[in-house]
């Protein structure tokens, strides 16, 4: 192959975007089909520059929209090779039609989603509206809380998605700006280690196998559509978690870095805990420690590492013994309870656990979730735990101007 390897330091100072771009280079993605959008653009720019500098071999299709970007990825993936792209927010929304097509056609495309709010009003900063929009699309969704994880989870995503027993596309999420543009120390893999971990792409039903023509993207009506969708759901429910566990184990052996489908922090003896995604998990862990040290509140944090498939049983295990849970949703629920609240309620309703569950809506459009906010939340959860019932409204908005917004 005609490309040069890159010598990386053991620890590089990378932001989340560059970490993801480096991962795409190291797994030698064959085709990137992409369209620029803030804050994810540097990921595909990075791939283009590596290509221009001869550090990766592949094709970069700079197309005319995100819909076309994913369409190009689908064609390229069906042709039989390793495919990735990146997007955010409005671009993600424009891709939605093709996201369902990619997963329904069982194509292992990797999409780096740098989470950003959805307009209107227009906003370039991070929240989880786009991630939530993707949750019924049939993709696997990994969530990174920092640049290191944005790097690592790309390798995991390729390994799991491309497994012939899985054959499903996967998203690697990171928070817009908070992760994507914040430079931190990132422990690297060498090019050989990284490529070796993911392995050479093994095509299946590839259009470019000219001796074995295939038909992709057929029509099915009431006679077969349900079976196809059921099979996809079945594989998401039964095959994906074992494969992720396997990949996490292999990755730990290689790097010493341990990932879990649900990340638990101080939950063993926790009386109260928040459940969160993204950068907020790290802030919450810091505050939980302070609550223990300063307030004597046995606080814990549950971080969702895999958002889809939804880790129902892992969370059921994680919440054991916890008396009050706060679901932190960083997306406007627009007339309902937040998504995490509803998912957790679904676990609790048939459980022997009797945790009081409340919902906090925070951080829309990049608004900070401060330590002070989290302290307040933990105190409220403690009051709920002591009372054995909610002492606040079920849903509260955190950090928004004007009179307090709370419902139910």
């Amino acid at each position, binding site marked *: 192959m005609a490309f040069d390897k890159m010598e990386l330091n053991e620890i590089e100072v990378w932001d989340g975007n560059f970490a993801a771009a480096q991962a795409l280079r190291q797994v030698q993605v064959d085709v990137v089909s992409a369209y620029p959008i803030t804050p994810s653009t540097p990921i595909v720019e990075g791939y283009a520059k590596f290509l221009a500098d001869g550090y990766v071999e592949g094709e970069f299709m700079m197309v005319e929209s995100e*819909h076309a970007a994913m369409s190009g990825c689908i*064609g390229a*993936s069906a042709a039989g090779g390793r495919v990735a792209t990146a997007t955010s927010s409005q671009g993600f929304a424009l891709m939605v039609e093709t996201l369902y097509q990619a997963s329904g056609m069982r194509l292992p495309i990797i999409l780096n989603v740098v989470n950003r709010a959805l307009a209107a009003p227009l906003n370039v900063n991070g929240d989880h509206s786009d991630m939530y929009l993707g949750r019924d699309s049939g993709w696997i969704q990994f969530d990174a809380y920092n640049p290191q994880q944005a790097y690592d989870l790309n390798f995991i995503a390729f390994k799991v998605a491309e497994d012939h027993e899985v054959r499903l596309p996967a998203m690697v999420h990171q928070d817009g700006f908070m992760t994507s543009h914040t430079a931190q120390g990132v422990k690297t893999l060498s090019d050989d280690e990284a490529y070796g971990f993911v392995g050479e792409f093994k095509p299946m039903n590839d259009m470019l196998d000219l001796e074995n023509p295939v038909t992709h993207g057929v029509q099915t009506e009431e006679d077969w559509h349900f079976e196809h969708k059921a099979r996809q759901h079945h594989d998401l429910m039964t095959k994906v978690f074992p494969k992720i566990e396997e990949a996490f184990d292999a990755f730990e052996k290689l790097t010493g870095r341990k990932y879990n489908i649900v990340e638990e922090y101080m939950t063993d003896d926790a009386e109260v805990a928040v459940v969160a995604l993204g950068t907020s998990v790290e802030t919450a862990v810091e505050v939980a420690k302070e609550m223990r040290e300063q307030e004597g509140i046995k606080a814990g944090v549950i971080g969702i590492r895999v958002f889809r498939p939804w880790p129902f049983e892992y969370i059921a295990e994680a919440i054991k013994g916890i008396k009050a849970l706060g679901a932190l949703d960083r997306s406007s629920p627009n007339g309902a309870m937040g998504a995490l609240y509803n998912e957790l309620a679904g676990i609790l309703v048939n459980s022997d656990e009797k945790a009081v569950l409340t919902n906090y809506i925070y951080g829309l459009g990049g608004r900070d979730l401060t330590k002070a906010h989290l302290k307040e939340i933990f105190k409220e959860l403690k009051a709920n735990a002591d009372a054995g019932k909610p002492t606040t409204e079920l849903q509260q908005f955190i950090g928004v101007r004007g009179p307090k917004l709370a419902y139910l």
Partner: protein
Amino acid sequence: MSEMKKIKNLKEFSTSADRFEGANLLCPGCAHSIIVREVLNATNDDLILSASTGCLEVCTAVYPYTSWDASWIHIGFENGSTAVAGAEAMHKALKRKGRLKQPDKEPKFVSFAGDGASYDIGFQWISGCMERGHNMMHVVLDNEVYANTGGQRSSATPIGASATTSPAGRVSYGEKKNKKDMVAIMAAHGIPYSAQVAPNKWKDMVKKIQHGLEVEGPVFINAMSPCTTEWKFDPKDTMMISDLATDSLVFPLYEIIDGHKLNITYRPKNVIPVEEYLAAQGRFKHLFKDEYKHLIKEWQERVDKNWEMLQRREEAGV
């Protein structure tokens, strides 16, 4: 290089389809299947194909069946062109990386789409594919209407046609807008080759398809596809209607090289009045009422003017 196929006669040509099965669900008399056979039969090259959502797609790949004996992909209504462009990019990448399973073969990439999927909803995607210079061919099966959804107007629907969303009625003569000149728009991308073809002129079609597959870069083909259902004519008359279209010059056959040099490829010996073309189809029936007869005159004038324009462009030779 494209592998040229020697074609002796129509019988041999029309029966040599081994990559598009007659077992499909298209209407009897539908020109789509005729055009697809003509395109596929024009070459012995390996083909990677796509179809955008539409009649061709829903009638040829209904699980667990397929009419396609070449690799084929459908994603959605607007993006069949980009699907093939993605496959073409992957081919380039794998070729360079030495990972092709049959490295000695050079497949050709062809996307099929209706006029709705090309002139309207897929316009941007096709423009992108043409502009980026993919080595691919996009073929429009132009039946001038959204046939698959039951006959709504598209921007390819001609003036005076009755479509379900621009119906002729007590106070309307149907579609009010002239057909979009898609070939000119695509040629304006500076692509190496664009052309109009019609199923009745199969030798012209074969020549153009073979040339299109041979040139490097994006190729745009607009194929007239008479629709028995929506144009409202007897299924046995598809070729007759095609003859009327090409011989009345309503659908002139020409090609544009490198985005500018225009060649007319068919000159009817006896040019037929446009009125005969219109009269043969139910979609124009209402134009023959007294109050709309002036529209037939206008139709003739428009066709004459267009033909003159094409001739002048050809003469100019620039």
